[in-house]
């Protein structure tokens, strides 16, 4: 029979009292330790099974692209149907989420909703592929309002991506703020304007984010989010309860907005009480109600409010946020000593800034305007698309004048641009079936000026590389005859090259050139090579000839002078001239194998496949571990014998859109399998 740790701990209490009566201090300490240990074990037993390690592929706008990174965090299952509580900064921008349960079961998860202002996010485990139907373990959210300094707490999660781990500490601060009212900015929001963290000294590390802070009753009292100095900071569970309720019921957290920026009273206002109005947003509820900077708010819907330090502002903000959107608010206060009453109707609070989106055909990431970002950018309304980052060499960057970060695209051709979704539609219409970039007249605004430019919008803004003239070639590799080498070979004072490799099936081989031959002259011209940087002198001389020329080589072989005549031939197709295929879904580029690949010993003569010439950093292929130089031999069960075969295989894959695509690649002498999981959306 398994005994509950909680029962064990309760049964120990009388024993403690008994021991105290006998005055045996050593035994008392031992018993206290046993009690705490039992409580800890009970708390762990209550929450640990519900812990998940959250593995996320997320995208962030940078350099004109949405760049992917793989991060890990923590979370807790809080409903039997598989909802998981974690941080926004772990999973709020996820394009793919895998949750590893404490049972080591791995399940995909979907982002149900995210709230930047509280840094919380809710995921839903995909239970459709579970191997068994055992109920999911869950943990319970406790009351963070009861937390006191000194309480014993446990931090649980996956620090540094490890499997589920537990550390122990005490509550150091039940309402922790950043020093001086400092801000914790997250995707444009000041998390500190709402959250007062539970500070604790249970060790947490990167990867603990989203994991629970647990009391000895086995309840979640916080969600670990930050490290401040030596302390960890957890978002109180009462706030998490509100956020989960909102997201589960409405898909988002609904909050009211008044348009007033509040601050603590100034030191010279020591005779007053209330909260100081720092600024009022134009056309906001506060503006319409007549509030002005300098007013002091003393009551909120009849309840007195006061802030003498920044720590006291978040509760006031929370009062505003918690009013139902469109609800009535009565503020009482003072203006220059006179009593005032303001009646306001709240509006829905929008995000401070929109999150960037990628517009591949423009080579930019861009944001829509929110009400606040439009005001901050002195825009008359929310119309337009604001450039967030620009791809070097992309269409926007290549335009003259170029479009840069912060510019606002307001019109293309004669059509106004409302937002990024509209711009994507307009671009699709403009491009139609054209495979080539299309020029479009763009009106954009920069620091109050309205500029025009022409952007060649399209799938590929890169200039086509010019073809290189086919040149003469001798099928040998050489090394420079350095002065020291010349002396060692009894050729003191001579210049030239030493043949280090003769390629088979070439005219050089037919003519009898051999490894070790030292070439001093071509058609009587001295091969003027003696320093390491003269490595191209011999090849350069050869390239000056026509491909079908016959050349007389003055050589030294085994110490004897000889003359050998060899015909040149056309050089093998250079790597830069080979056709490439760039795949935007998998985010890598491949090309045919070249003669140079044989020279580099990447492949053997007769090998088949395509060579990965470029892997977009932070792309899907990069995430899967594919590297430039890898040779793709097979995709799923299709052997890749040419670039065309690769194209066909990829086209078939794109029709089927499987979750994972397996590539069989060769890297050096080893082969390996790589699994790419592209985002088909």
């Amino acid at each position, binding site marked *: 029979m398994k005994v509950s740790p909680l029962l064990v701990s309760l049964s120990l209490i009388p024993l403690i009292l008994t021991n105290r009566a006998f005055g045996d201090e050593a035994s008392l300490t031992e018993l206290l330790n046993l009690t705490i240990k039992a409580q800890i074990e009970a708390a762990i037993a209550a929450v640990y099974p519900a812990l998940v390690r959250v593995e996320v592929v997320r995208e962030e706008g940078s350099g004109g692209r949405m760049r992917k990174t793989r991060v890990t965090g923590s979370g807790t299952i809080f409903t039997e149907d598989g909802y998981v509580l974690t941080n926004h900064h772990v999973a709020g921008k996820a394009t793919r989420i895998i949750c590893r349960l404490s049972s080591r079961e791995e399940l995909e998860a979907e982002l149900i909703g995210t709230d930047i202002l509280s840094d919380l996010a809710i995921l839903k485990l995909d239970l459709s592929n579970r191997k068994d139907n055992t109920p999911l373990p869950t943990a319970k959210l406790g009351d963070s309002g009861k937390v006191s300094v000194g309480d014993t707490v446990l931090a649980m999660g996956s620090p540094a991506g490890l499997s589920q781990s537990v550390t122990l500490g005490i509550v150091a601060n039940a309402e922790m703020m950043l020093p001086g009212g400092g801000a914790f900015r997250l995707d444009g929001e000041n998390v500190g304007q709402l959250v007062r963290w539970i500070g604790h000294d249970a060790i947490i590390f990167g990867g603990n984010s989203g994991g629970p802070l647990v009391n000895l009753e086995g309840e979640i009292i916080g969600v670990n989010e930050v490290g401040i100095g030596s302390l960890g900071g957890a978002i109180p569970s009462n706030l998490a309860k509100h956020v989960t309720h909102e997201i589960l019921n409405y898909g988002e957290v609904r909050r009211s907005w008044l348009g007033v920026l509040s601050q603590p009273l100034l030191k010279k206002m020591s005779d007053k009480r209330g909260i100081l109005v720092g600024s009022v947003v134009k056309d906001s509820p506060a503006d319409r109600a007549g509030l002005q900077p300098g007013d002091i708010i003393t009551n909120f819907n009849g309840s007195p409010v006061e802030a003498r330090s920044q720590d006291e502002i978040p509760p006031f903000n929370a009062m505003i946020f918690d009013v139902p959107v469109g609800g009535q608010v009565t503020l009482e206060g003072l203006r220059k000593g006179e009593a005032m009453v303001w009646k306001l109707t709240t509006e829905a609070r929008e995000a401070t800034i929109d999150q960037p989106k990628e517009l591949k055909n423009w080579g930019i990431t861009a944001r829509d305007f929110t009400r606040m970002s439009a005001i901050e950018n002195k825009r008359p309304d929310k119309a337009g698309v604001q450039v967030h980052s620009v791809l*070097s060499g992309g269409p926007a960057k*290549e335009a003259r004048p170029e479009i840069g970060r912060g510019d606002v695209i307001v019109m293309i051709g004669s059509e106004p641009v409302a937002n990024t979704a509209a711009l994507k539609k307009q671009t699709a219409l403009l491009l139609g079936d054209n495979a080539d970039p299309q020029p479009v007249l763009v009106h954009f605004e920069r620091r109050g000026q309205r500029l025009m430019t022409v952007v060649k919008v399209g799938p590929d803004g890169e*200039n*086509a590389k*010019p*073809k*290189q*003239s*086919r*040149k003469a070639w001798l099928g040998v590799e050489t090394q420079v005859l350095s002065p020291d080498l010349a002396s060692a070979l009894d050729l003191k004072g001579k210049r030239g090259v030493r043949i280090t490799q003769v390629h088979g099936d070439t005219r050089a081989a037919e003519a009898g050139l051999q490894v070790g031959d030292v070439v001093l002259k*071509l*058609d*009587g*011209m001295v091969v*003027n090579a003696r320093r390491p940087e*003269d490595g*191209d*002198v011999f090849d*350069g*001389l*050869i*390239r*000056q*000839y*026509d491909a079908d*020329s016959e*050349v007389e080589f003055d050589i030294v072989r085994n110490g004897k002078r000889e003359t050998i005549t060899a015909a040149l031939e056309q050089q093998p197709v250079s790597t830069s001239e080979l056709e490439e295929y760039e795949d935007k879904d998998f985010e890598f580029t491949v090309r045919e194998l070249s003669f140079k690949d044989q020279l580099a010993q990447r492949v053997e003569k007769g090998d088949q496949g395509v060579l990965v010439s470029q892997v977009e950093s932070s792309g899907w292929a990069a995430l899967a571990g594919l590297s430039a130089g890898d040779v793709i031999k097979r995709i799923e069960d299709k052997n890749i014998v040419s670039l065309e075969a690769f194209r066909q295989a990829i086209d078939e894959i794109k029709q089927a859109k499987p979750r994972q695509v397996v590539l069989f690649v060769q890297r050096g002498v080893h082969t390996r399998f790589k699994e790419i999981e592209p985002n088909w959306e």
Partner: protein
Amino acid sequence: MRRVILAIAASLLGAITAHADIQADARKIQDANQDAVVYLSAVIEIERRGGTREASLETLGTIISERGLIVTANSNLGQTPDSDGNMPKLQDLKVLMPDGDELPATLVLQDVDLDLAFVQIDNTADEVTFKHVTLVEQGPKFELFDHFVMIGRQEEDLERLSSLHVGRVTAVVKRPRLVYGVSGTSEAPHGNPAFNAAGDFVGVFVRKIHQGKLGSLIILPTKAIHKAAQQIAAPVEEKEDAQEEADKNDPDEAIPSETETPEAKL
């Protein structure tokens, strides 16, 4: 003594007559071919450790086909690799036509070793044709100290007017390929054409690439240009009659095995 004086007088007269002849010939050649010599304008992007830098440049080119294929000196388009082996990126290429039109163009073929580049005027309608020099595979050849006629263009401040220069071939280099050394044109732009006194297109002015670096100004004969142009998807049209004419003028295909210079001859 009298004989000597007469001989000198005859010689001087001959020289003056010859000089007058080449002047007249050169003007005729200019009249016939000046519209085939155009300015190319390009913007290149150069990668530096601290970022990229743009530079604009102008050079001359020679139109060699009625469809607007132009040959020029590759080095003049900034298309030589830097010390790190990076080739500047050609951002914007335009042809400045004699009538003032600017036509977009594309670099279609490069031969870094021969300092050759081919530029195609973009999207020309079928009915549009360009005045061009007549390129034949086995073009005429120069002998040492022959006159050459070079057609160029003045710079923008002189309205890009057609310019004319007559010089002498100072070296005939035969290996590894036939090229001509020239005198009196070291400061001249290149990418423009050289003609013989008969008005035949003999080659273009480019720089000799020596051990990977830009060397002397030379005339690269039409054979090399023709051969390179054949690698472009739409090969340059060949005038059969011109080829036959050239063959008549140059029955001897053998290439001497030595380099001749005026100094050696003296």
